[in-house]
């Protein structure tokens, strides 16, 4: 009996320590969590690609986008991932700086409109995009949003929920958005005036969405493409994305090949596949973003999306240079008094 227990114990232990062998025909992809969940994009497109390439794809979640990058850095000596999905335009220069990605431009890059090809250095390939926007409950908020200054209305005192720029991409997006509207240092005055209207700053976007959904807040920082979600899955058409005349800040999500991959050809094939219709048509209802492939027709619910007339974006070099300063200035304003 004792022997059996000890043998069992040791074998479990050994089993735990055995590293999985890298297979030639295996593509390993790191991404954020919502991509791999059963409601996400992953399950819809991975099996299609597996049929096409006759290979096996391991789509692995590493938490959120920041943690995906963390994992890549931690594993830099013996990379396990071949492809990374989900680095957005504000994180891309940090990602390139790590030196852990390989240059690649897909053959079918022409599918992507010129203005969305944001990585001029040729590492990252965009696959979807969207715009940040404040989404509000029009039954609870009687307010005519015209522009950024509408956020300063006293009716919103202690009611707006936003996200932390240090921990969330929409949070960072809003900060960059405010800089592109008011300039530097003008954005600081905006935040000082806006602060009394903020109910709370959440770590991630999902906590904000939760607060909105239980009726704790009538307005939160989200995406121009969030109303289609409520329209399609909850039959609610009075949750509206406020249209700001200054324009809306653009977010582009992208993917890249990890340096040191042993499956470069397969990785290339996957990225090219991601721009094709088979992949792109699943984006609206899983990512709630716009597909980069313009030949994909959008579902009816996307009529509720906000289609901004003007898109805003700061150059990624400026973002890289100034981001830390802007975030710490923002933190100072939030923490003071």
């Amino acid at each position, binding site marked *: 009996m004792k022997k059996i*227990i000890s043998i069992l114990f040791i074998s479990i232990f050994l089993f*735990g320590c055995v590293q999985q062998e890298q297979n030639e025909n295996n593509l390993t992809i790191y991404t954020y969590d919502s991509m791999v*969940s059963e409601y996400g994009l992953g399950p819809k497109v991975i099996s299609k690609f597996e049929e096409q390439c006759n290979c096996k794809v391991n789509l692995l*979640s*590493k938490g959120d986008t920041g943690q995906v990058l963390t994992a890549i850095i931690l594993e830099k000596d013996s990379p396990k991932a071949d492809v990374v999905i989900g680095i957005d335009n504000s994180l891309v220069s*940090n990602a390139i700086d790590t030196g852990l990605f390989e240059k690649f431009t897909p053959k079918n890059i022409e599918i992507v409109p010129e203005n969305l090809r944001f990585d001029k250095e040729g590492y990252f390939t965009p696959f979807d995009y969207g715009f940040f926007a404040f989404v509000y409950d029009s039954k609870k908020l009687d307010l005519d949003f015209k522009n950024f200054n509408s956020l300063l209305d006293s009716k919103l005192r202690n009611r707006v929920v936003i996200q932390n720029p240090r921990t969330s991409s929409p949070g960072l997006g809003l900060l960059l958005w405010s800089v592109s509207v008011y300039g530097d240092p003008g954005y600081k005055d905006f935040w000082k005036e806006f602060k009394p209207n903020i109910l709370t700053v959440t*770590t991630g976007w999902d906590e904000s969405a939760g607060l909105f959904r*239980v009726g704790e807040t009538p307005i939160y920082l989200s995406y121009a493409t969030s109303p289609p979600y409520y329209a399609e899955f909850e039959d609610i058409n009075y949750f509206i994305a406020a249209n700001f005349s200054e324009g809306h800040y653009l977010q582009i999500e992208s993917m890249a090949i990890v340096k040191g991959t042993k499956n470069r050809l397969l990785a290339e094939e996957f990225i090219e596949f991601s721009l094709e219709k088979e992949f792109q048509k699943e984006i609206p209802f899983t990512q709630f973003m716009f597909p980069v492939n313009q030949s994909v027709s959008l579902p009816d619910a996307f009529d509720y999306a906000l289609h901004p007339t003007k898109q805003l974006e700061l150059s990624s070099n400026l973002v890289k240079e100034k981001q830390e300063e802007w975030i710490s200035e923002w933190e100072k304003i939030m923490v003071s008094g």
Partner: protein
Amino acid sequence: MGKNNGFGIIAKIILLLFGVVFFFYPLAVLFFRTIFLTLNFSLFLEIISANSHLIWNSFYQAGVSTFVSVLIGVPAAYLLVKRDFFGKKILKAFSYIPFVFPSILVVISFVIIFGNNGWINSFLKSSFGLGHIQFIYGFQGIILAHAFYNFPIIMHFVSNAFENLDVSMKEAARTLGANKLQVFFKITLPQIMPSLLSGALLVFIYCFMSFAIVLSFGGVQFSTLEVEIYKQISRNLNFTVGSVLALVQFFILFVVAVIFHYFSSKKIITTKKYFEKVKKLNPFSIRGFIEVSFLILLFAFIFLPLLSLILFAFFDFSTMQFTFSSFEKIFLSDQSGLGLSAISSIGYSLFLAFFSAAVATLTALIAAFRKNQSFIIATFVSSTIAISIMTLGFGYYLGFGSGNLIIIGFGHAILAFPFAYRIIKNSLNRIDVECIEVAHTLGANNFQVFKFVQLPRIKKAIFVSIAFSFAISLAELGLVLLLYDGVFATMPVYVYRLLSTFDLHAAAAMGVILISISFLCFYAVEYFSDFEVVV
């Protein structure tokens, strides 16, 4: 273990392997790679002094949280022991709910109840026309949530002490002319102090390394060491600073854990000779009225978060009707059409929980039986209490890589180990030494003593240890999220995912299932034995 060397050696090896491979090795890798390879001493000090406000924040926050938990927990323990009232058993059973409430769900149910547009504020507004009270955003929210989690710990520690009070001493003092106050400060307090202190120290450690609650309610304004460790490693990609802070936190908590270890092994267990009378609660006296009001508030504090979850799970707010549609959605109408992932998440959770409960209980049993090397055991137990989930998680990531369910199971076993150890050790200490000596004198060897004398007496403790470890693993999210690769989505992960697709109803439904399983576990322990689950 004396005469049964084979058994003893195997046991020793198992414990050693467990400690070295799954605790010492990952932490050594973490600290070696990030600190010793890249850092000199002055830079080390620089990082600490730059973050000294966070160290202070952690102390301050944990101190206030502990104080409030004691403020609620001690009167609760007193009433539980000294008063007889309707619903006492239910209150006792319900006090386990916070143990099994995953923190992501606490956050959302606190918003529903205590939020600016939550139940309490809506009630105050509609009945008294009051403006809202800000309960949860900022420091007070952290304290409120920590009180919810931790006052039951104080309550259990202290009610145990109250039950073991030596009443004869108290009566003697009264006879000798001491007044009530003198009796309390000179007789009662010294007797419950070791229990109160060890409970408070444990609560302090938990609050010090609390993560999800501080992250959610603290917002930008309030951060602590543990939150900063996560931000530095996961967001700023600054592993050096993150690890230095992790090391500092570990040493601070290790010291607290050693003090805890000292007090909790000093806990006096008297054999009761005189029972103090349990009085019936009389709501018509002033004192009785205060006591009843306190109990009602206490009950509401524990029960409301659960009620909010149940409502969201079973109630459709648009039609105002009870429905099982959230459960149907989870199990029947997911993408695969088979409900596979909801069921597999229950499967992963149960596997992890059983596996880690078995490992934690087995190793705790071995550790509790070791009479020699108590210094090493004490150090190991204190270290496993003092290690935070983020630190352990990053250590595991560097040491073992990710995506291995068994490894996660061992991680959960490390988290559950100090509880399992304390439960079994306490029970073992209660066995009359004479009994064992008599058995030895009569010619029993160590194994026979174990089998016929000790084992029957600690059977219940083993059962409790398994149930406790089981529940810890079941509710744990942080370690799984760091290591699961998106593959082994356990129940808390499933809830987390449902929350991020903002399907609160389905998340609540899954939460109700998760809490029910752990709750049944505790209830079984409470029901089948008179064993108090005291850690």
